[in-house]
């Protein structure tokens, strides 16, 4: 494993993303339209939704955006290009660089989404609660990391099979659920402005789940790559 190699692979992912700006713009637009559809269908002009729904809806939107945007990391890669990468880099470097890149991508998308979402979606807060922005952002960071590491691995698995786009969703949703449940709990705590010590458990569990998922994909990816 070579640090420079990983950095140059990440740099290459960023560069090719920048050259295909339509894909990036597409993802941002996908996010914005989904948020807007939710906004319209909940009829928010009439009344605001309560905090629980607001929070859950935000994470569901992010989940679908994440599945769609990470899916392309292996599935949309042409066979020839994939072979080329595998001949110049080791599988471990590839999975690490893809995971880091996807984490950055999802983090950016989540932040953009958060801004748009809180701009259009009104919510009723229970009385006397303050929105703990810092902890909400921590939830977003941990959530994007977890989504990125598990989805990158799953997209590598799904890319090997036929019918990979629908398989991607089927394979990833049950695996992601623990992460999503924990993140929803953590961000709900932040929204209610609970004392920060309440959230320590959730943060630790999220970090632990992320570590497990990352370690397992680090160990397993070389086997996947051989086929």
């Amino acid at each position, binding site marked *: 494993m070579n640090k420079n190699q990983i950095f140059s692979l990440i740099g290459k992912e960023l560069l090719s993303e920048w050259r295909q700006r339509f894909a990036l713009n597409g993802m941002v637009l996908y996010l914005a339209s989904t948020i807007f559809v939710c906004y319209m269908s909940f009829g928010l002009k009439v009344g605001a939704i309560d905090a629980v729904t607001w929070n859950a809806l935000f994470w569901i939107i992010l989940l679908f955006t994440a599945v769609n945007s990470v899916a392309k990391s292996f599935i949309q890669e042409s066979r020839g290009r994939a072979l080329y990468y595998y001949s110049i880099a080791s599988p471990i470097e590839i999975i690490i660089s893809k995971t880091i890149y996807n984490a950055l991508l999802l983090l950016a998308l989540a932040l953009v989404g958060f801004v748009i979402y809180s701009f259009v979606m009104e919510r009723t807060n229970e009385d006397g609660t303050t929105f703990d922005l810092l902890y909400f952002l921590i939830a977003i960071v941990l959530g994007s990391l977890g989504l990125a590491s598990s989805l990158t691995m799953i997209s590598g*698995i799904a890319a090997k099979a*036929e019918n990979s786009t629908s*398989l991607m969703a089927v394979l990833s949703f*049950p*695996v992601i659920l623990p992460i999503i449940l924990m993140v929803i709990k953590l961000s709900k705590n932040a929204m209610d402005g609970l004392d920060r010590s309440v959230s320590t458990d959730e943060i630790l569990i999220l970090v632990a789940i992320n570590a497990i998922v990352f370690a397992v994909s680090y160990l*397993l990816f070389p086997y*996947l790559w051989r*086929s």
Partner: protein
Amino acid sequence: MKKNWWKALALILVTYTLLAGLLMDAPRLNILNETIRNLHFHVTMWFGMVILLTASMVYAIKYLRSGQITLDDKSVELAKAGVLMGALGIITGAVWANYTWGEPWSGDSKQNAAAICLLIYFAYLVLRNSMKDEQQRARVSGVYNIFAYAAMIPLLFILPRLDPNSLHPGNGGNPGFNSYDLDSKLRVIFYPAVIGWTLMGAWLANLRVRTRQIERALED
């Protein structure tokens, strides 16, 4: 005959479970009453499922290390047997919950975890069916098997224990069977029952693995 002792053991233990679990004296407790006997038929399904799925994952690791296709056969059939036990666990639980909690499905955190766990393994089976090449199917699904198992552990063992509102005995302030069973009357049936049901599952998987191998030999 020497090799088959465990099948005889499975039969004896399951027969013992059926007889003793239904006929022997059980602790009389509020709400649970006689339904506490379901411990030997419902809870044992989960123990059996986790053991079988663990075995399936071990065979997936062995396959990835050696590349022998017979190991993959064992892995998939053990996973199927585990899924069968999981489904039976949900059904036995739902029947029990219908009388004890008033409805078959009440969104309890353990029920949800069980349902998600089954979803994971259904996805595993769908993944297997979407690949034609035998070796590739074995390798990719082996990778998913291990990955899913690692993701399942926090789901089954940690999350339900964090839920303060779980209805299950032993959670959320409800006393578990450890505190009911002061004279170990249940334990003498429960632990043999776990072994018996697990061996039954292994037997089932064993038969299916052998069918697979015969089919493969016929094809060649």
